[in-house]
């Protein structure tokens, strides 16, 4: 299985390669792999040099602009392994973490199928309003939720955001409060990050967070 990992200041873009284009999966900051199978990570960077490191799975390998590097590894035991950028990459080098989730092959296949599906249209009125807030605001300049008109590719892809355990590249556990805090003031949590502060009225914010929380 081959995954393309692209380093960005300061998050990880992950693409599951597949011969058929509709099975290519793009996600961020959380890598799922099946246990007991060899995995190849193909690394490169679009900005500065980063380095991929999961102490309990594999040693470091740099992500270099203009060059490709490779990590071959295999996880035999299911579990969640934390990793972090190991090459100084600027202001938020400290907050560039990620997770590797190793699960039995069946669970992995199920996860992958679920991730490939587009986001379901929201049913609750609150979440429907939230989707509108999302589509109206500057979010879509950088982010994408498949199944909606949003198509930004600059920031992490959000289609199944709520299935991930952390937001902001391993910085905050995924929950309502953190999502709201991150959207309104990312610069105090991760100063220098490329996500700007967004002025959203409190009511809209609640709706937006509900919408995002439902992206499962």
């Amino acid at each position, binding site marked *: 299985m081959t995954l393309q990992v692209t380093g960005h200041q300061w998050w990880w873009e992950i693409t599951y390669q597949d011969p058929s284009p509709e099975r290519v999966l793009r996600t961020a900051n959380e890598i799922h792999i099946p246990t007991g199978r060899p995995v190849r990570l193909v690394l490169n960077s679009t900005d500065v040099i980063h*380095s991929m490191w999961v*102490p309990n799975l594999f040693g*470091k390998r740099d992500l270099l602009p*203009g*060059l490709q*590097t490779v990590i071959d590894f295999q996880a035999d035991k299911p579990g969640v392994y934390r990793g*972090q950028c*190991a090459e100084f990459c600027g202001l938020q080098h*400290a907050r560039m973490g990620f997770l590797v989730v190793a699960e039995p092959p069946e669970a992995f296949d199920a996860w992958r199928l679920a991730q490939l599906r587009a986001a379901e249209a929201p049913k609750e009125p609150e979440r429907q309003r939230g989707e509108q807030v999302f589509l109206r605001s500057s979010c879509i300049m950088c982010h994408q939720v498949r199944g909606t008109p949003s198509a930004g590719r600059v920031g992490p892809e959000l289609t199944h955001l709520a299935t991930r355990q952390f937001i902001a590249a391993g910085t905050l556990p995924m929950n309502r409060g953190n999502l709201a805090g991150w959207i309104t003031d990312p610069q105090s949590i991760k100063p220098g990050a490329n996500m700007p502060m967004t002025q959203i009225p409190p009511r809209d914010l609640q709706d937006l967070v509900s919408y995002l929380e439902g992206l499962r």
Partner: protein
Amino acid sequence: MSVTESDRLKEQEEREDAGAPRDSTADEAELHRVLSETWGTKPGFWGWITTVDHKLIGRRYIATTFFFLFLAGLAAMVMRAQLAQPEGQVVGPDLYNQLFTMHGTTMMFLFAVSVMEAVAVFIIPLVMGTRNIAFPRLNAFSYWVFLFGGVMVWGAFFLNIGPDVGWFAYVPLSGPEFSPGKRADFWAQMITFTEVAALAVAVELIVTILKQRAPGMTLDRIPLFAWAMLVTAFMVMFAMPSVMVGSSMLIMDRLVGTHFFNPAEGGDVLLWQHLFWFFGHPEVYIIFVPASGMISVMLPAFTRRPVFGHLALVLSVISIGILSFGLWVHHMFVTALPQLGESFFTASSMLIAIPNGIQIFCWVATIVSGKPRYATPMLFIIGFIITFVIGGLTGVMVASVPLDTQVHDSYFVVAHFHYVLIGGAVFPLLGAVYYWFPKFTGRMMSERLGRWNFWLAFLGFNAAFFPMHLLGLWGMPRRIYTYQPELNWGDMNLFVSLAAVVVFASFALFLWNVLYSLRHGEPAGDNPWDADTLEWATSSPPPAYNFAHIPVVTAREPLWAERRALPVAVGLRTDMRELVITSVTEARPELRESSPDPSIWPLISAIALTGLFIGSIFTPWAVVYGSIPLTIALTAWFWPKGDKEDEA
């Protein structure tokens, strides 16, 4: 002037020379008066800025490097305060990144290399038994350039435009796209300043050691500290051009749009890493080799025997110097390199442990077979041996690729290189300051404070840095300004931070000991340790002319071999600055050459060069404009002024 007049001038000079006063006189008091007159530095501010006396320049060089050490230490303390707990709020990422950049940059470029050269500037001419360093005006120039470079980069820091890209300034992070502004330029120009200064001193040391040795100091009688400095100077000469070319390329990429490191236009980001580490690895040995020389030269005084394995130590130092150029790639194991290259550099990294091991065995053998006397310098030597062996072992560990990919850029490596640099270089250096302080100042440092100093430094250091090995193995990367509480690194980091306070306190105590002893230390006498090398053959502190008569060396331990009366050579003129030039291998006297007298032009040239360097951060045209005053100053520097030193 006509051609015949030139011949006439020459004859007149020869007549004058024949009738000139010499140091052959028996009247020592009169000799002292005349030589002090000839070699002395004028009192007052003018004398201070024009002096070319290697002892005055060496002393201010040492003081300046320790001042930078203090600043870098403060930066470390702020970082430790920030890391003492998870999600610390002492400083933000921007300041933290500047702090670790300044810490590393200052320690490597403004302290470690420079302080070794600074000690050598003071000590080497004395060890060689000569009256001044070779090219003394270049020496003055070197100090000013060094000072201005250091002040520039710290000035930038205090204006909050300090470099923030690490002491290694990897591209493309330090390139035009990801580091707009002038921060990275200050870093790159600081390189240029300090390398110019370091190269100048390297040339002076090489020529002093090769050509100004006391008569009779044949190659096999050169003291080990001089051997170490000779090898260091050669390493500086071959390593520094690499980083200078690299930092010039970086500045050009940033300022005039070249593409050396831009992959989009055919450049390559790894080229920078090769250029940097081709310098950066020898750099570690440029710091360690002088320290090893200090140990070899101190040990005889404290074990009452010549150092064991003199020849083995010389050969070890030389092979370390050569091998250190074959290791640089082990800093790049986690980039993209061919497998064969990795194996080669693993092997060479392990190979260099052999000469280092030989050195350690020789030192241990000297101590075991001697009658050790545990004065403060000796304590630091013992502390060195313990610490350096640990640092060396972890060094062999990180040389192996599979292990390195785990610990690279983690706190394990932070621990490793602090063991090598503090244990391997700073401990011997502190010991050497205790050892040579009487020669620097005429007074002994306090032994009681010295013991406190050592134990605080040794225990504090191990407490602060040993746990970092564990933090690294637990996954803590370097250069992070904070970490999350869930990672459970908090307790260990708090412990490290508290221990760091102890290390800082030990340095404060050292500083206090220096200041206290300057005024109240016991008067030292010429040779308080009953050491064997020539710097102890003159008074403490030495007179401006170093030696009333040039010593003649008859054995490897000249002062032990000639206990009753020191053989000397006479016949140098006393009415002008004259020193004896000897042959490279046999140290046979060849020339009585004049040594330049004080001049303001090294300072003016350094100011002109500073203008050029700082100006070129802002516009490439500064190189053109700036070269005009620089050329004028340099021409004035070398233009003969008609006094005897210039004419001869």
